[in-house]
């Protein structure tokens, strides 16, 4: 007679026990807690941990658990009042050294955490939060690259003491016009980078000399893809500043970026900060021409640009040469100067020198700070600045001040509103966006709706499970209970795998678990129907069991492959919540293959296999 190999029993037991261990953290609920990370994004160490804890305890906040995870300090607290208190205590005691995020912390015991176990990660539709999808405007990346090229070329020519009459973008290139034709080759040599990313084309002109610099195809492609990567980095920096626990910023497709912020229920602050492109430029004021005259006649001198001063609304002509721009800043903090909002900035070494040189030569002359904001216009929306297609660039001079003395890399900027100063400091600190972003999708799920979704999903699952249990027990009697045990262990394995992989579970994912109950019993039904068929054909009970399992196996494998294919395709094409459905479906098929073919057989052999003379089967 057929002998069931002992190692198979052990395999089943090992798999089941590990499944249970991985699934175990899900039994424990979530407690309120806070997560601390250092504002400068360095990892927290044990000394800092101790200091924070002492601060908390001194104020009467006693954590129920605390530990370091991935450089962050996680503190679990007894209730929400403690959670809020803990946040304010830390914020007031450490003055901006840490970012404190409110979060939910699993209340599983310490030893589980030390084993690296974690509960399933819930999707935004279950825990509440906001979900954004941004599209990176790769064409905008090129425009931006040209603008920075323009700035570089101006600086280079100035440093090389080559006189030029104009440097301006023209289509996809940059046109440079020199005063003296003799300087042409010197200028080209100075401008042309060593990496060959620029194509230079001479263009004959009546007076002086002119050439157009254009990025090569390859350089443009590289720019575009690096723009997406850079934007992801910038968004990560900005998200970190928002103080949200476990935010994610991921790339989707070629030019999309998905930002998920769990626990946030008002998306507006996040939208404002994430998509903002505010930056600064410092320029000298053109004092030789009359700004009012230029505004009236619309004839602006080539070497200048016309701006409006924010506070007075009056026009001002600023020199085209940018002394320093926002991306040359290494730090920015919002402060107050004489009770008015200000941003205190620190420049990098090169920009610091440039500023030093400019201020040395221009003491007593006015310098302006230009505030630049780019945004994507909705159709019909007016643009107060210059408009290219749907992109609007608004530039205004927020301050025009006389250079009182020489300064270099550290100074303050005034002329902003409080919120602007705060946002600007944050934006300057987190780096600028390498290309404009357009929001193409936004979903916000309130926390109560998330809990509702969990409750409904779990209830449907339990009722589905109970009904299936009853059906199988009535229809297949003792074998039905085998199927039920198998189904239950299958559920545990699926939950265990989901916890292990930390794949996020969404409402469609829970629905997949429920749907999967039906598919999982199918394998058992196939086997039992085969066994019944063999019994009807007059085989002995034991032979029927063996034949049933043997013959049903190929069918089970074949029939599951088709569902598996659908699951994989769904995974490949789907996004967000649908991906979760695909993952659960695919994992479910794999676990049900294992539990019904190996697990169920082990159980059947364990129960009936040892009876030497089996007269009948309860099937």
């Amino acid at each position, binding site marked *: 007679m057929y002998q069931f190999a002992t190692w198979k029993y052990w395999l089943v037991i090992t798999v089941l026990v590990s499944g249970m261990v991985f699934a175990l953290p899900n039994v424990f609920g979530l407690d309120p807690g806070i997560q601390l990370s250092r504002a400068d994004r360095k990892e927290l160490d044990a000394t800092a941990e101790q200091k924070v804890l002492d601060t908390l305890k001194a104020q009467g906040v006693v954590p129920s658990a605390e530990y370091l995870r991935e450089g962050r300090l996680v503190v679990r607290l007894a209730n929400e009042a403690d959670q809020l208190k803990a946040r304010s205590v830390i914020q007031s005691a450490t003055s901006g050294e840490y970012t404190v995020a409110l979060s939910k912390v699993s209340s599983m015991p310490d030893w589980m955490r030390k084993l690296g176990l974690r509960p399933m990660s819930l999707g935004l539709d279950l825990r509440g939060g906001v979900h954004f999808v941004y599209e990176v405007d790769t064409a905008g990346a090129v425009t931006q690259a040209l603008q920075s090229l323009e700035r570089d070329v101006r600086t280079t020519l100035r440093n090389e003491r080559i006189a030029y009459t104009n440097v301006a973008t023209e289509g996809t290139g940059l046109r440079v016009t020199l005063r003296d034709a003799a300087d042409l080759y010197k200028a080209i040599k100075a401008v042309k980078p060593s990496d060959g990313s620029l194509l230079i084309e001479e263009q004959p002109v009546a007076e002086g000399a002119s050439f157009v610099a254009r990025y090569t195809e390859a350089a443009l492609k590289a720019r575009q893809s690096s723009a997406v990567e850079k934007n992801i980095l910038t968004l990560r920096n900005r998200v970190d500043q928002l103080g949200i626990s476990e935010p994610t910023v991921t790339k989707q497709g070629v030019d999309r970026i998905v930002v998920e912020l769990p626990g946030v229920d008002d*998306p*507006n602050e996040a939208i404002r900060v994430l998509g903002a492109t505010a930056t600064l430029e410092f320029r000298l004021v053109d004092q030789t021409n009359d700004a009012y005259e230029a505004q009236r006649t619309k004839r602006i001198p080539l070497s200048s640009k016309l701006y409006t001063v924010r506070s007075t609304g009056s026009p001002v002509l600023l020199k085209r040469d940018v002394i320093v721009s926002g991306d040359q800043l290494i730090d920015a903090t919002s402060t107050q100067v004489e009770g008015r909002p200000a941003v205190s900035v620190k420049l990098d070494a090169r920009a610091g020198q440039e500023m030093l040189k400019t201020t040395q030569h221009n003491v007593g002359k006015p310098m302006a700070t230009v505030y630049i904001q780019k945004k994507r216009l*909705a*159709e*019909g*929306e007016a643009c107060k600045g210059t408009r290219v297609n749907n992109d609007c660039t608004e530039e205004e001079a927020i301050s025009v001040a006389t250079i009182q003395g020489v300064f270099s890399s550290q100074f303050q900027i005034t002329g902003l509103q409080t919120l602007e100063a705060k946002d600007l400091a944050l934006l300057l600190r987190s780096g600028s966006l390498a290309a404009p972003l*357009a*929001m*193409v*999708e*936004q*979903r*916000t*799920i*309130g926390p109560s*709706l998330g809990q509702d*979704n969990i409750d*409904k*999903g779990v209830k*449907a699952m339990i009722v*589905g499970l109970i*009904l*299936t249990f009853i059906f199988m027990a*009535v229809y297949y009697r003792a074998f039905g209970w085998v199927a039920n045990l198998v189904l239950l262990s299958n559920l545990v394995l699926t939950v265990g795998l989901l916890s292990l992989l930390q794949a996020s579970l969404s*409402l*469609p994912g829970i*629905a*997949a678990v*429920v*749907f999967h*109950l*039906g*598919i999982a*019993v*199918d394998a058992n*039904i*196939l086997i039992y*129907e085969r066994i019944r*068929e063999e019994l*009807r054909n007059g085989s002995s009970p034991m032979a029927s069991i063996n034949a049933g399992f043997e013959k049903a196996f190929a*069918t089970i494998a*074949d*029939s*599951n*492959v*088709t*569902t*598996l*294919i*659908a*699951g994989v*395709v*769904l995974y490949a*094409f*789907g996004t967000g*919540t*649908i991906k979760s*459905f*695909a993952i659960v*479906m695919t994992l479910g098929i794999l676990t049900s293959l294992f539990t019904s073919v190996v697990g169920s057989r082990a159980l059947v052999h364990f129960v009936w296999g040892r009876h030497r003379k089996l007269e009948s089967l309860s099937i």
Partner: protein
Amino acid sequence: MEFFHKVSTYPFMRTRRMWYGVSTVAILASIALLVLRGLNLGIDFTGGVVLQFAFPQTANIEETRTSLEKAGHEAIVTSFGAPNEVMVRLLPQKNQDVNVVSREVTAVLQTSVPGVTLRSSEVVGPQIGEELTNQGGMAIMMTFILVGLYTWFRFQWKMGLSAVVATLHDPIIILGFFALTRITFDLSVLAAILAVIGYSLNDTVVVFDRVRDNFHTMRRAASEAVLDASINQTLSRTVITSGATLLVVLVLLVMGGETLKGFSWALTIGILVGTYSSIYVAGAMALELKLSAIDLMPPKEEKEEIDALP
């Protein structure tokens, strides 16, 4: 308990002409519904704004709609699950920023009925919808191609083709159902359709597995008899499995909440139609393609040639 004490002997193949008629009518009706009535596409596909509000008491749908209209927003207002929950949907309008619109609508409702809370908001740009429609179509086609290839490889081309044709039947009828009832067709419904394709094929594969076996054991029998026997032998399994799956899907339909309504309906219809098509359509198609024992013989000649070599 056992519903199928003896193996049944329904002559499925003899009545196949009638089932062709039934299938043709169902498919034509579905296509007509799709063309004439169209799908009530969800925000995932059309773009636009969907806001879900909780009112302090039972919400007055009509009043909500008029107060929004007065503010200049043409919105579809429906109750959503509970009587105090309301869903407001706005299609994308030109010259409007969807984010601004969603904020305005929230403000209008909160001033007209104090205590209204925004439970969820979804704002989808039109370009996403277009892309999703393309991707969804691609996903369905890819699934068909892959499962078709698999059944061809595992069985034989006639069976692969029959399986795919029988399965093709299911998404069309599901789409027809959604056009008829105007239940919102969103991304999760698309996912359900893909799951149904896998599920329905699963049924067909079980039948065909038996067909392959039976062509080996019933050497003398006519193809028609083999197919009938195979369908009858697997009938109990097909019905019981479908019943068990239908049971849990119905639980989902009743208890899963509004968000999963469309999804659960697609699965319910899909399981019913999928079961029907596996029983009545797949086998009949194989018969029409003149599937016979020869098709399922292992290719012997080559082996003999090799053996014959000195």
